[in-house]
């Protein structure tokens, strides 16, 4: 597979990799979330994100003559296009995990909204479908944002959001950054851009591909 995909496929891979890796990270809370109810919620959100990743990969796979699974698992770690925000290993830190969910949903809503106007009908249709599902993620993230912001843990949560904010800006580009600043009520700052990977990423890649790599080309 080419490292330089055509621009519209490049965009799809960014979207897919973001959803895939965030889904993988959110699934790390399965079994250890602060409440059983949240455990179920995080698992459910992770599944939806991965479902979205699969849909984006399928569109890209048709362009690149490959499969969704090959795109999701069989690239080298440096070939993934995900934003550093989703790569961060935040498990055990609920404040940061929830801050990431809220920032991600806020940015993703802007991005998905613009995709609905895509002149690629399959992508526009997919964006409309995804928007309906992301609405529930946004409700969940907004609930935690409000709850923690009003609570005695407000400083802990505010610190988490501050720390992740430059990463959140890296999810979108151009004018969408301005819209994100408005939506989040925050100042523009230098973003942690896509392209470089954070140090948490190789370990996650190792783990998510370890079974599959034992039998290259195998059926699972």
């Amino acid at each position, binding site marked *: 597979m080419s490292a330089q995909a055509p621009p519209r496929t490049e965009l799809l891979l960014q979207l897919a990799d973001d959803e895939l890796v965030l889904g*993988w990270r959110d*699934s*790390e809370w*399965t*079994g*250890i*979330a*602060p*409440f*059983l*109810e949240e*455990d*179920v919620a995080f*698992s*459910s959100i*992770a*599944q939806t994100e*991965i*479902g979205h*990743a*699969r849909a984006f*990969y399928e569109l890209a796979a048709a362009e690149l003559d490959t499969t*969704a*699974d090959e795109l*999701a*698992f069989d690239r080298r770690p440096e070939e993934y296009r995900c934003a550093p925000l989703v790569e961060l290993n935040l498990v*055990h*830190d*609920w404040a940061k995990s929830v801050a990431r969910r809220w920032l991600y949903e806020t940015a993703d809503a802007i991005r998905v909204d613009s995709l609905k106007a895509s002149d690629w009908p399959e992508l526009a249709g997919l964006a409309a479908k995804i928007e309906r599902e992301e609405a529930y993620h946004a409700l969940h993230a907004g609930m935690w944002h409000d*709850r*923690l912001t*009003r*609570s*005695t*843990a407000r400083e*802990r949560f505010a610190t988490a959001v501050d720390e992740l904010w430059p990463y959140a800006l890296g999810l979108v580009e151009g004018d969408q950054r301005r819209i994100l600043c408005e939506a989040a009520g925050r100042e523009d700052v230098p973003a942690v851009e896509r392209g470089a990977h954070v140090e948490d990423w190789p370990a*996650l890649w190792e*783990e*998510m591909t*370890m*079974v*599959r790599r*034992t*039998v290259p080309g*195998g*059926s*699972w």
Partner: protein
Amino acid sequence: MAPRTEQEFKKHVQAGGQVETNDWMPDEYRAKLIKFIEMHGNSELMGVLPEREWILRAPTLQRKLALTAKVQDEVGHAQLIYRVVEDLGKPREQSLEDLIAGKSKFHNVFHYPTKTWGDVGVIAWLVDAAAIISQKALLKCSYAPYARIMKKICWEESFHILHGRDVVLALVTGTEEQRELVQEALDRWWAPLMMFHGNPIPAEDDPMVEWRIKSQANEDARQQFLDGYVPQIWELGLTEPDPELRKDEQTGVWHYTEPDYTELKHVVTGHGPRTAERLELRRISREETAWVRDVVLADAA
């Protein structure tokens, strides 16, 4: 006429009568219910941990989705079951504290390690199959709220079995190496599976049967498991590691090497190969997220 004495109550439940949360019940019945149902809740919750390790390693998008959904179901079952325990008088937080402190038990199979992707298939297929046999029998439990949630649980568990069988099928039809993953996992899981339904005490000596909390004898459950699944294991060209295992065609009874019930006792009393490690993970994650519960509960107050 609602039962008012222990004797009337026993007669009522033994005749197939059911009991609701607000009905009068003997203290002994309530205590036995709490202990039994709490262990079930603990098992669902601890059962998450062996499979959880493989959620990050699932080798395709479809497997990732199916495994995450399956584990999510188990957490959901724990939530439902602890709710029943709570209505009987023991708060969920107390159940979780007792679990971590080693004061309450969970099923033997969740004390063992998961070593390969083969375990993921074998657990979802055969451990869930063994579990559903016990759970189906609980549909007739004398405590009605527990029997009711068992309907949903059995329905979901039957999907897990299909998922597990599908994982196993893909491996046995794959490369020699993949097939070996399943066989090796089955070899390791066989003994814990044979112990799963407990030692073969006669139903009339089982206090859980006396109150009709359970209505199935341990050995009946094990026979049902063998009858349902050994032929399927053979059909896939797999073997179980017990040379004594055979069905007596005349009596329909399966014969097998007596499982090591000392090991079962040792494991469920907190000395399994992964007991300490898994309870420690529960303890640490509870400690690290305690502030979240404090914040939310303060909010609710």
